[in-house]
């Protein structure tokens, strides 16, 4: 049976994404599954739940359970450094370009953060996918999450168009070369196999498409809702936006439910196609690691295991 190796906890800020993802990860690890929990939220508090300082490197949190807090600024810096070195290695007139100031601007350019999240996810899944039974991602607030989930689809449209255009350029070069082999206008390659830009674009397309597949087919997505209108409205928006990307949620978690465990009618009405799991607040609060056991997520975790 196909198993969705990756899980994402989505929802409005403060609905309990970190708590539920941690509790699910802890529950599964206690059942003997090897779990990696990864926080993508720039305002990390995953480490606080487990009482440990986390970083970009794996830290053991419990038996069978390791954690990572993705440091986006480190990812951005690493990514820009690679680009910088590549430019210095390939440009003939590199001394005239003030690369460092350009790189500094790039750090704050819209879109860079989402891109960094994507490559961080790609790295984690590639590097640790075989080592763990499941990788659980605790996501940042909705705005950033939706942007990075949409990034592969949107960027792929661009890449497709650019590839088409590049093919036209190369075809034109071939035509000119066949008529006039000494044409001075031909600077670079004239076939898709030799053209480095075409190769790079194809590489980007391949990576983005595999990330889209990861979100679409290999990820278990659960949206968390609280008994309030705002978190429900945001959950509906998440579902709607993801459906536009052909990515579908797998379940809904009704967290901080009233003590009788009743799930709101409006949630049932709006998400009647999906399994809804209810979780009541832990009365004593979460103070120690063992308190995570009291969070009612077994049904959610079992559903995840079946997916």
């Amino acid at each position, binding site marked *: 049976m196909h198993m969705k190796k990756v899980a994402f906890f989505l929802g409005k800020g403060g609905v309990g994404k970190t708590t539920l993802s941690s509790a699910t990860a802890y529950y599964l690890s206690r059942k003997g599954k090897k779990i990696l929990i990864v926080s993508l939220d720039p305002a990390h508090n995953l480490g606080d739940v487990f009482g440990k300082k986390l970083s970009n490197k794996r830290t053991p949190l419990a038996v069978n359970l390791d954690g990572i807090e993705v440091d986006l600024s480190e990812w951005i810096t690493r*990514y*820009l450094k690679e*680009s910088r070195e*590549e*430019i210095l*290695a*390939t*440009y*003939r*007139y590199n001394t005239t370009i003030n690369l460092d100031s350009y790189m500094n601007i*790039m750090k704050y*350019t*819209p*879109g*860079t953060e*989402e*891109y*960094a999240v994507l490559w961080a996810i790609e790295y984690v899944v590639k590097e640790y996918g075989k080592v763990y039974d499941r990788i659980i991602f605790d996501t940042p607030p909705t705005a950033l999450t939706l942007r990075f989930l949409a*990034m592969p689809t*949107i*960027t792929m449209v*661009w*890449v497709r*168009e*650019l590839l088409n*255009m*590049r093919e*036209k*350029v190369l075809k*034109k*070069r071939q*035509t*000119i070369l066949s*008529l*006039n082999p*000494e*044409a001075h*206008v031909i*600077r*670079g390659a004239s076939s898709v196999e030799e053209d*480095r*830009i075409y190769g*790079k*674009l194809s590489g*980007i397309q391949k990576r983005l498409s595999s990330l889209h597949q990861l979100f679409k087919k290999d990820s278990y997505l659960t949206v968390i809702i609280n008994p309030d209108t705002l978190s429900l409205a945001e959950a509906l928006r998440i579902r709607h936006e993801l459906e536009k990307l052909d990515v579908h949620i797998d379940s809904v978690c009704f967290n901080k439910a009233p003590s009788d465990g009743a799930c709101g009618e409006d949630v049932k009405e709006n998400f009647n196609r999906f399994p809804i799991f209810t979780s009541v607040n832990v009365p004593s609060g979460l103070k120690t690691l063992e308190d995570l056991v009291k969070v009612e997520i077994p049904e959610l975790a079992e559903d995840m295991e079946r997916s």
Partner: protein
Amino acid sequence: MKEKYSLGKLWEKFWETTIQVHRDKATGMLEFELNELENLFVVLIFGSFIGLPSPPAAMAMELLPYLEDELRVMVSRADLAQDPLGAVMGMLNVD
């Protein structure tokens, strides 16, 4: 010893040059189109600098290392932008 040019060799050279001139003329329009396409390609990638919708800047960044020649075309096209009619007339050999 001074090389002697035979009439045949001179004719050959003249013929080669004539053919090349005609080839250059024949492909002039295509080369102009190619320059335009290459220019458009870079403008699409770095469109955000001039307020056009563009792919994520970080993606443009990944392509940047390989775009040196295309960037040069873009800059030269920008120079020509001051006198587009002159560029077309030049290409059509209208003095």
